[in-house]
């Protein structure tokens, strides 16, 4: 899906986080935003996801206005820097959350949800971990569960905010390689 940002501006009081940002992302592209901390990367991602709104400018998904849609309607997967896994739910329940949260009409059956979640867990190579709690996982494993959870809703866009910031170099390398493969296959 094409993303188009046009003259997006976001101010926080006297501080301008984003100043007339223009960006176009084609379908299937994998884009990395690089910049020093405080340069507005997270703000931009949040605006695309619908967790924040620009003061000026437009955001289009496939030519249609995205700003008039709420975050749930935008179908954007978001992986936070701090993973934001639900601590009181098992790994399985975390990944299944987005599917179970759907209104009854469009919700898949339990059997199908189970199948999808298990497939996702296999994908991130954490198949046997379904019954564990996030507190029992390492940082790298939590990162992958957060990713699996975002993927479960089959998002049109996947946003990752500093996804490897809290991990050590070796794990970072592996996850990056793996993410590249995921994007390449999409």
């Amino acid at each position: 899906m094409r993303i188009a940002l046009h003259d997006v501006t976001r101010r926080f009081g006297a501080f301008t986080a984003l100043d007339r940002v223009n960006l176009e992302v084609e379908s299937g592209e994998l884009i990395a935003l690089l910049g020093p901390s405080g340069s507005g990367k997270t703000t931009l991602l949040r605006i695309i996801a619908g967790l924040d709104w620009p003061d000026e400018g437009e955001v289009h998904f496939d030519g249609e206005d995205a700003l008039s849609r709420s975050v749930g309607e935008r179908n954007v997967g978001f992986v936070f820097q701090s993973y934001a896994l639900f601590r009181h739910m098992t790994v399985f329940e975390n990944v299944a959350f987005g599917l179970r949260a759907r209104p009854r009409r469009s919700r898949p059956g339990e059997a199908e949800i189970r199948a999808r979640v298990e497939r996702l867990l296999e994908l991130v190579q954490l198949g046997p971990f379904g019954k564990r709690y996030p507190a029992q996982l390492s940082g790298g494993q939590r990162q992958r569960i957060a990713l699996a959870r975002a993927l479960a809703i089959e998002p049109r866009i996947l946003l990752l905010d500093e996804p490897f910031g809290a991990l050590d170099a070796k794990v970072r390398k592996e996850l990056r390689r793996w993410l590249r493969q995921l994007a390449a296959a999409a």
Partner: protein
Amino acid sequence: MTDIELHWDDAFAANRKSTPDHVRGRLSPENAVLPGFPSQPQASRTASMSVRKATRARDVRADPAPMRWAIIGIAVTFLVLFIVVPLLNVFAQALARGFGAYFAAIVQPDAIAAIELTLLAAAISVGLNLVFGVIAAWTITKYEFWGKSVLITVIDLPFSVSPVIAGLVFVLLFGAQGYLGPWLQEHDIKVIFALPGIVLATVFVTFPFVARELIPLMREQGTRDEEAALTLGASGLRTFFRVTLPNVKWALLYGVLLCNARAMGEFGAVSVVSGHVRGETNTMPLHIEVLYNEYQFTAAFAVASLLALLALVTLIAKVVLEGRATNAANSE
């Protein structure tokens, strides 16, 4: 993302070129690994799709307005009904007959005696609990030893015991028919129905306050500062007074205030151990009960208002001290 593998983008660009054209848009696990997965129906579109230049930021975490106002309404009504109104009532009833009657009730001899006794008993109790509370907190937070959690439970015990039972146990020990009763009578020592009994009961009930305020804070602060002082050659006592105490001064002060408020206001435990002798063994709360039972309502409320003022002062102090404690923590 400040550290980058510069070759990554090149490698990826090469990858991208090999991506088949017909695979569009959605990054989904089926495309990645398993083919043949049923596709998800599109999310329904909203009606208004007009392009907007300036948009209103809508907080994702905000509750809808009707729900907000309903909850605020219920919460405020509940708090006003159960807390504000009774509190106001104390002062309203105290001043029901004007300031003259108010002051007359307070300076009445029995009332003065009650006030003096309350202040004395509270001063002793708080003083004792201050010293031993600090020592207990030090023991628990600066050392590791077996049975620590048992110790903490014991410290918390008075909180879960009814004040009446607190008084009862001291009567069982020191009362005329108590275990030590005969011995005390022999030596003409009065504990129950006298100041010592009141102090004991008050100490029992208010002991946890100081320790509980200090323990979480001291636990968080750890032993680093003390160890530093020791390496610099300070003695244990010096370390305690110059390093540990200053670190916890606001929490300690607040613990003392709470302890004092509870000590001065304790009713159930003291009621059991005191003899209810007017002018001698009646604390302020007991005196309030006496006045109330004699239908001297205005006088009762007048004395009560003094304690209510104390409670308000304690709360104000809490807010102020919490502000100071936060500032101290932030400036570290």
